[in-house]
Every structure is written in C-alpha cells, then in structure tokens.
C-alpha cells in the first residue's frame, strides 16, 4: 500500500488500493487495447503471413516499412491525398465549429438580446437531430445548389455543433464572471477587445474540449462524405479505406478478391489513428478540466 504517496494533499479516504478492482479494470483495459495491438502487429506483416500467422505475434519478417511505403505510393499516392483532405476537413471544419460555437455560446451566456432564449431552445432541440439523419437531405439540397462533390459539402455541415454551443454556454456562464466584463467596460475596453483579450483566455479549457470532440467527429466522419463525394480525390481517409476494403473483399463489382489490399488497409488504418491519439494525449490536461467544469456541472 503506497499510503505515503497517496496521502499527499488528499483525504484519508483515498489511500487503500483494491487489488480486485485493479484486476477488473485491467481486464477492461485489455478489451480496449487487444484489437489495437492486433492492428499494430498486423501492420508489420505481408499479406501472406497476415492470413496465416497468429494475430497476437509477429509473422514472417518485419514488413512495417515496406507496408508504409506501399500505402503512401499506391495509385500515385492517393492515400497522402486522402490524409491531406482529412486534415483539411478536421482543421477547417472542427476548428471552425469550435470557434463558431465558442463565440455563440459566449454570446448566449453573457449578452441579453431579443430572441436569445428562442435560439437556445432551437439549438437544444437540434442536438437530438443527428447528423446522419440529415445526410440524405443534405445531399439532395447541396446537389440542388451545386455544392456536391466539392470540399464545401463536407466542410459546411462540419462547422455546425449544437452540442458545442450548449457546452460553451454552460461553460462561459461560470468561467467568465460578469464582474470581470464590467471592469473591462469601465476601463473603456470595447466588446470586441474584451472578447479577444480577456474572455477567450478564460474560455480556453471549454474551447479545447469542444475542439477535441468536433475534431474526432470530423476526423472520423464517414456517412456524410460517403454521400456527398464521388470523386476519390476529395475522399477523407475513412471513405478511402473502405474503398480499399471493397477492393479486397471483391465487393466493388469486379468479383475478384485481392488479398494484396489487406496490408494496405491495415497499415493505412494505423496511420489514420495515430494523429488523433497523439492529439488526445497532448491536450488531455486541458480537455479533461474543461469537461469537468463545463459540460456536466450544470
């Protein structure tokens, strides 16, 4: 029992470790990681040992770098293009969503104007309307106005985050005290300047939380791009990887299955996961505090 380390600044209730509990949670961690370990190991195999070797150990030879090379160069480097598209959709779409939701949530929390409550009620109602139910109508509307098969068809819907607005409104309520705003006004700061120099800083953790959730949503988005894009050069990684999968399983119409695609899919999947995991680990200090003090405090 590590009572000495656990006691630091904490109440006595937090110093008895339970082995049974740790083992039980260890099993859960195993459940979370085992498929990912399989995926990582699979990315080191060629297509032959991918199909024949044991999943939780290496196969014949170490082919990770050959696989990565194949992924990046196949079809004139279409994967790199997909990666770039995903990056574009994530940075502009999710970044835009977070900025727009932060400004809107702050406005709803700190300014009184006509229609404020109506807007908030409308947005809360919209949280229950899922993006996937809107995907088919979005396609129909966008094809009417000629937006289909362009990056805008993915970017514009990605910038709407009703949950982000809700979260930021709740967060801004407490994070930016009215007294601070009044002090700034008395000192003669304009509203714009107050927002950028004072409020944005206080809204930081909430902003990072919204950013990360919309980052995941856009990075992982599949249904909407699948529908609104038909030209592979605008595909994000998700749609591209599934296209490779349909080549591998022969579902693409040709009838011939091509097992040579499996290493591409597996290694491409690993490369697609890495950026988000890194973002989570690096920003976790910020978003976890934002989540705790903002989203569910209420």
């Amino acid at each position, binding site marked *: 029992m590590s009572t000495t380390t656990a006691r630091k600044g904490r109440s006595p209730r937090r110093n008895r470790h339970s082995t049974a509990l*740790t083992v039980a949670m260890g099993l859960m961690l195993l459940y979370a990681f085992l498929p*990912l370990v399989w995926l990582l190991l699979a990315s080191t195999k060629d297509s032959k040992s991918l199909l024949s070797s044991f*999943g939780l150990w290496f196969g014949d030879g170490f082919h990770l770098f050959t696989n990565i090379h194949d992924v990046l160069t196949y079809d004139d480097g279409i994967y790199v293009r997909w990666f770039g598209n995903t990056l574009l959709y994530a940075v502009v779409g999710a970044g835009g969503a977070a900025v727009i939701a932060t400004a809107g949530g702050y406005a709803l*929390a700190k300014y*009184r*104007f006509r229609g404020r409550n109506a807007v908030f009620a409308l947005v809360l109602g919209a949280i229950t309307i899922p993006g996937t139910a809107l995907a088919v109508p979005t396609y129909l509307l966008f094809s009417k106005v000629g937006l289909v098969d362009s990056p805008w068809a993915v970017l514009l819907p990605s910038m709407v985050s009703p949950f982000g607005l809700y979260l930021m409104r709740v967060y801004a309520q407490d994070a930016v005290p009215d007294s601070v705003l009044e002090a700034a006004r008395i000192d003669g700061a304009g509203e714009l300047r107050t927002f950028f120099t004072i409020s944005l800083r206080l809204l930081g953790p909430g902003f990072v939380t919204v950013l990360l959730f919309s980052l995941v949503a856009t990075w*992982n988005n599949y249904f909407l791009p699948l529908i609104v894009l038909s030209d592979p050069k605008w595909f994000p990684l998700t749609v591209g990887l599934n296209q490779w999968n349909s080549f591998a399983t022969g579902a693409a119409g040709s009838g011939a299955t091509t097992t040579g695609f499996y290493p591409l899919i597996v290694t491409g999947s690993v490369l697609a*996961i890495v950026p988000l*995991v890194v973002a989570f680990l690096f920003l976790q200090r910020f978003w976890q505090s934002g989540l705790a003090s903002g989203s569910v405090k209420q």
Partner: protein
Amino acid sequence: MRTLSPPSAQSSGNSAPPSRRPSRRRSSTAGNGRFGYVLLSPFLLVFVIGIVGPLVYAVYLSFFRERLIGGNTFVGFENYARALGDHLLMAGLWRVALFLAVQVPVMLAISLLAALAIDSGRLRWAALFRIGIFIPYAVPAVVASLMWGYLYGDNFGLVGQLGRAVGVQVPHLLDQSWMLASIGNVVTWEFVGYNMLILYAALRVIPEELYEAAAIDGAGEFRKAWSIKLPVLRPALLLATIFSIIGTFQLFNEPNIMQSLAPNVITTSYTPNMYAYNLAFNGQQFNYAAAVAVILGLVTAVVAYAVQSRATSREQAR
C-alpha cells in the same frame, strides 16, 4: 433539454430569470446586446445551412413523388402511408429497437462501473485506466468496424484463434444469429470510454465535504456510491442515454462497413438509415428516402423525449 440540469443549477445563473438580476447590471449589458448578435451570427448561418435547410428540404421533398410523365407531383402524405406499411422499414426499426434495449444498458452499466471505480480512489494507476479505456473513442468507426470485422472473420480470425487456444468452440460471429451482437460489441468498444469520461467528469464536481460528512455518519464505499454518487450522476447518465438512443437509431457506419464481409446477413435495409441511404443512392427514390429520413428523425426525437421526461418526472417525484 433544459430539464437536464438538476435543481442545483439555480446558483450557476443560467436558469435564473432576468428579472431577478440587479437592474444596474441589466442595463449595462442590454446596451451591448447588439454585440451578442454579432458573435452569434456565424453560428446561426451554419445552423441554417447545415441543419435547418436540409430539414425543411427533406420535409418538402417527402410530400412529392417523381413520375415518369408529368415530373414532380404533390402527393400529400402518400410517401408516409407507404412507409408505415413498409415491412423492410419496420423490420429495420425493430432491429435497432432490440439493439437499443440490449446494447445501450450494457454499455452504460460498464461505463458507470468504470467511472465509479476510477473515482473511488481504490484503484491503482487510475489515470492510466482513464485515458486507456477512452482511446478507442479516437478510432474512426470505419477502422473499428474493419478491424473487428477481420477479427470475427475466417481470414484473420483472432477471435477463433483465441478460442482454439483455450479450447472453446467460437460460434461464427458474422452469421445471421450473431451479427447484431457482433455489431453491438463494436459499438460498445468504441463508446464505453466516452461515456465513462462523461460520468467521471460529473463525479469530479462532488465536493469532498460531502464524503467526509458521509464517513462521519459511518457510510462505506458502496453506501457512498449509492446515496451520494448515483443521484449526482443522474443528469449525466440521462445525457449519455439520450446520445446513445440517438446514435442507435442512426446506426449506419458499422453495419455498412461490415456488409462487405457478410453481404447475405446485412441486407440493404438492415437498419433504417441504411435503408434510406440505399433508397436514395441505389434506388433513386429520393422523395421516399426523404420521408423515411423524416420518420426516422421523428422516432428518434420521440423516444429521446419520452426517456427524458420519464426521468425528469421521476426526479420531481422524489
């Protein structure tokens, strides 16, 4: 949705009626109300483009029918009447309802236990577990479905390999009777950590004094979890439930991806959302697809609303 916040929200101010505010402060912010519009307008713009527009257009389309001769004609509720008698749609709705009844409670129960375990202070390496169990959430549904699909299947078959290693005959996880459970496992794997984190964040705001008071009264860990933590968790649990309901009715990615591995089991109408998609893009029946999408949205909203109002009326009855 406002009812999602517990009564204690009074102090945070967002539910306090404006009349209760000091009049001086009200006048000082009222003059700056215009800036509120400026900050809100980008959101309103994308909101209209991304949500209101498609929604209105879907409702509009659902009242028409494309005819070979005469083009688009107004048919009133004809598409809706057809949908209500469409056994493919109904079968899909029942399938996701069954999924909802089994997968969501299982997933939320695991998330709840994990959140309580991490918060209990009895766990070694709690931070590692917290971030580790959350990591699958960062994996795209497409990758998760491909990966699990391979794990279930014959070609790669880690599940089968492990079964043989411990001497258990593993059933064929991609066949008719196991497919829904197999998809349920993928969805659970993806979202257990996410829900755990939402619940854990709610637990973090319980003031330490409450536990100290309970300890003085002689409460043990289970008593504390039952009497202090669960009541506090109720709004967060409700939020997680509602998001799960929405996600379930919209089920698309996982079955759509795994379709290539089991095309005979996962039909084009396996879930209502897949049905709407296939109607529109393989059948060119855009008007009927719009009606199906509207019905799906309505069913989702009604179920989510029913769960929420039931939960809040129980809250008030306490």
